[in-house]
């Protein structure tokens, strides 16, 4: 915020200006981080989902049982189904949990919740989020550093950038990351540790961005052993590392072996004890529980939501106009949706896991093509986003929370160009809106609206002020249709809160979920196609 002094030539003034700038610079980031933390602290007494009990149970398992029993123990239905590093993470937490309330560490204490347990668990999420802050900071700095400039906007004066926070690309990207409304809702209300895991993910991307691919690969391997859902990113990582680390300028076997050994060491540290106990099949059956349905009870806004929807509509049309009796299916239909596990398609062909895998692999090809074509960091991040996005769109039993895995890497590129800014704006609004059904209790309804509204307004202003341009056509603005679509969530939300529970909930209890899902999938599919176009456009 220091203005350029007119007598810039004088050495003393110059140095004092730069020190204040630095001071302000750190303050800015610290302020935002503390502000976010304060908001998270305020959210402590909000509703917690069953995931709260899941993690409490894992704390109890890891603290009171030997390692050999971790993946066998099944007193609670919420068995340990994350990879070993996460179990060790829970073990570390349990050391501190002891100081708060010993009773939460008893395996048989099902659904135990006390004030101290609540505070401890909430605080553990908030404190481990520090890693997310740190890696967001590092990454936001490295993305816009002078030798690694991905910014297309040459119009912006770099000198001016640091003077005020709404012109500072680094700060805006940092803010976009750490204020992510999805993380706020899923981690700090619903209860999970995504922020911490996203921190590891960003750290890995940070190492890639600063040209330390081996370290990036190492951190990524560690991340995989925290939560295996990050396999979504693996194709992009694998291709990038293979092409630009191992066989850049001719095949380099030493690098190849080095990378292989690194990954192998991480996996053997993680899985070693369980290989020793001979529990690998047991562990794998926990990590990959087949037998779940194609979609969740609440359809994640992806391709299969459309597929299901078309199937439902077809049933309705068939029974109504062709007089074919479908009483069994009609039962499903009138409820608007069916239970996830028993769900089957009636008219359209049934989908098996193999089919989803094939479609996903085919849909991955554009991102891999992009990475093969260019070794730019921008393309790598875009590829990672597209990779996650493909799994989200076509994967088997995808959870709606997985959208955060797309919005976080895409957020890194939000200031990259007008097009990506637009895509990010639409996706962040719609994608995070699709998380609303997670927070369904009356107390949380105003919170979810306020969080998303605040973030969306701030994002719009930030994008507008940053991507400001004298040329009208190059300014950030949504097309009419996009704007209409984004604003359309307001009547939808009004319908979901006021009209549906009063008038329609008795006859069609899942109607609002279905509408939300279908409405959001339109936008998500649009963004998916747009990102694909962006990849093909890159030179």
């Amino acid at each position: 915020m220091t203005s350029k002094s007119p007598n810039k030539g004088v050495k003393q003034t110059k140095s004092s200006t730069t020190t204040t700038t630095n001071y302000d610079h750190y303050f800015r980031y610290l302020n935002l981080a503390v502000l976010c933390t304060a908001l998270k602290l305020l959210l402590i007494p909000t509703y917690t989902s069953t995931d709260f009990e899941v993690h409490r149970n894992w704390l109890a398992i890891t603290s009171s049982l030997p390692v050999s029993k971790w993946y066998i123990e099944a007193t609670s239905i919420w068995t340990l189904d994350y990879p070993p590093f996460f179990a060790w993470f829970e073990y570390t937490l349990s050391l501190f949990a002891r100081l708060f309330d010993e009773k939460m560490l008893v395996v048989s204490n099902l659904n135990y919740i006390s004030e101290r347990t609540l505070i401890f668990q909430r605080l553990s999420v908030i404190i481990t989020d520090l890693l997310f802050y740190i890696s967001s900071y590092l990454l936001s700095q490295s993305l816009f550093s002078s030798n690694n400039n991905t910014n297309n906007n040459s119009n912006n004066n770099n000198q001016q950038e640091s003077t005020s926070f709404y012109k500072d690309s680094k700060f805006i990207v940092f803010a976009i990351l750490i204020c992510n409304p999805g993380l706020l809702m899923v981690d700090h209300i619903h209860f999970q540790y995504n922020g911490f895991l996203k921190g590891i993910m960003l750290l890995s991307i940070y190492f890639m961005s600063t040209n330390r691919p081996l370290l990036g690969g190492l951190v990524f391997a560690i991340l995989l052993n925290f939560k295996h859902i990050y396999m979504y990113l693996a194709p992009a990582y694998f291709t990038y590392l293979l092409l630009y680390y191992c066989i850049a300028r001719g095949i380099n076997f030493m690098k190849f072996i080095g990378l292989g050994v690194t990954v192998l060491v991480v996996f053997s540290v993680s899985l070693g004890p369980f290989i020793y106990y001979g529990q690998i099949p047991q562990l794998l059956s926990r990590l990959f529980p087949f037998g779940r349905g194609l979609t969740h009870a609440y359809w994640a806004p992806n391709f299969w939501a459309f597929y299901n929807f078309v199937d439902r509509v077809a049933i309705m049309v068939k029974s109504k106009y062709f007089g074919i009796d479908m009483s069994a299916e009609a039962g499903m239909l009138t409820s608007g949706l069916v239970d996830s596990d028993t769900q089957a398609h009636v008219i359209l062909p049934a989908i098996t896991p193999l089919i989803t895998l094939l479609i996903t692999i085919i849909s991955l090809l554009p991102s891999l093509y992009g990475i093969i074509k260019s070794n730019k960091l921008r393309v790598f991040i875009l590829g990672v986003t597209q990779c996650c996005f493909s799994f989200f769109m076509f994967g088997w039993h995808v959870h709606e929370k997985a959208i955060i895995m797309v919005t976080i890497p895409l957020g890194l590129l939000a200031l990259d160009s007008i097009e990506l800014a637009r895509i990010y704006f639409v996706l962040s609004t719609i994608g995070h809106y699709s998380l609303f059904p997670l927070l369904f209790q009356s107390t949380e309804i105003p919170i979810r609206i306020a969080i998303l509204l605040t973030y969306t307004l701030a994002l719009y202003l930030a994008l507008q002020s940053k991507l400001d341009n004298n040329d009208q056509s190059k300014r950030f603005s949504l097309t009419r249709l996009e704007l209409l679509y984004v604003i359309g969530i307001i009547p939808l939300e009004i319908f979901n809160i006021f009209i549906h529970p009063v008038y329609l909930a008795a006859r069609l209890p899942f109607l609002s979920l279905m509408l939300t899902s279908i409405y959001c999938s339109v936008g998500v599919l649009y963004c998916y196609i747009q990102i694909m176009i962006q990849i093909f456009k890159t030179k």
Partner: protein
Amino acid sequence: MSVPEDLKYHSPIFNKRGETLVWLLLISLSVLIRYAISIHPYSGHAKPPMFGDYEAQRHWMEITTKLPTSEWYFNTTNNDLQYWGLDYPPLTAYSSWLFGKIGEKVEPESMALYTSRGYESKSSKLFMRSTVIVSDLLIWLPAVLFFVQTFYKEQSLLKRSIAFIFISMQPSLLLIDHGHFQYNGISLGFALFGITFILRNQQLLASLFFVLSLNYKQMSLYYSPAFFFYLLFTNLSFSNIFKSILNIAKIGIVVITTFIICWIPFLSLEQASQVLFRLFPVARGLFEDKVANFWCVASTVINFKTKFSPEQLLKLCTLTTLAAISIIVYPLIKKCWSANLKSNWKVVMYRSQQLMFIYSLIISAFAFFLFSFQVHEKTILLPLLPVSLLVLESGYITIILMLVSHYLFEFIEPPVHLPALFHLLVASISFGYFCLTVLGPARCLSKKCVPKNARCSSPPTKPRCRPDYNLVTFISDPN
């Protein structure tokens, strides 16, 4: 005419639409924070038999919707004044009635006579909490926005938004209204509207809003000396006696009419005296528990409560308060009359005159807070409001006072459930607030407090334009 540097810099991005969006963003942020605070327990949660201020407000809704107005302030078979009897002026009763009518629709059992005492449910809490947030949205936030757009209109949008956050999100107000449960935002909002209209030199509107504030909570009396003297001196001129009498009479008519309209159901002597008796209970003692005022400090040396009778104490308090208030009289006279002379009855408001008005508000509110009889610790909000208004003028003093006001948190008793959580709540509100305003941007603001005035001809290298020559507002009076 040259455009100020700040505006030039902002113009392409923050055009009119962008500015509206900024205000919308700030309002939605303040709703988010208010709502996040309000999910915590309120005062007296699950604490029979008397519960707390939350129960008092709910009880008033029950009384006002179920009983005729003639019984509201009286101890009758249906209205036990010992159990949270109504002790605020009529506007509070009316707003309780309004909220109570809505509450009846939402959850009838929460407003039932007798049976609803100590009624606590998740949905009724949600309803009660949202009434506070809605009244903030309707009165308090618009008042702050109006003030900022009037008093700081020469400042850049960034600075104005910081001022907005600083004033509207004072931790003490947030905690008392949304944590503890009260409706101070309404009365302070009305008072702030009054203050802003004074700053715009629209005195009739100003007196109207100030009377509304008085009729919502009698504690707004703390501001009355400042309003009274200011309105008196700006209109008094010996060179034009006829016009001064006319102006003062106009203000008097507005004040009296507003009062009468507010008090229509209570205009009989019996009713009015009973309401007044309820509003000013002098029997409660010199000060409550531990208030950071003069009497509390002095009591460590002299035990006033045993040495003097309550009557004597009352007189002592009145005298000291009057003495403390009298400080403002002379500077106000000087400023207002000199302004009158300079402007020669053209309605011009000088920056220094505006500042003087705010200073006199501070002095008179502090005089009451420090010296008057039977002060409640929550009334620190009254001196804090005008202090916070000066954030872009004299940042450091404002910030220090805001810090000091945190003593208040000591006095909000933590609820029975989740006491540890309560302290986290307090800590996070103050940390968040200081990050938003004090530590960061405001730190830079307080260095350059004078607005870059387009008409100010002095070169920018000069540290400070003399405020007297900073013509700020040119708004004509309706008279």
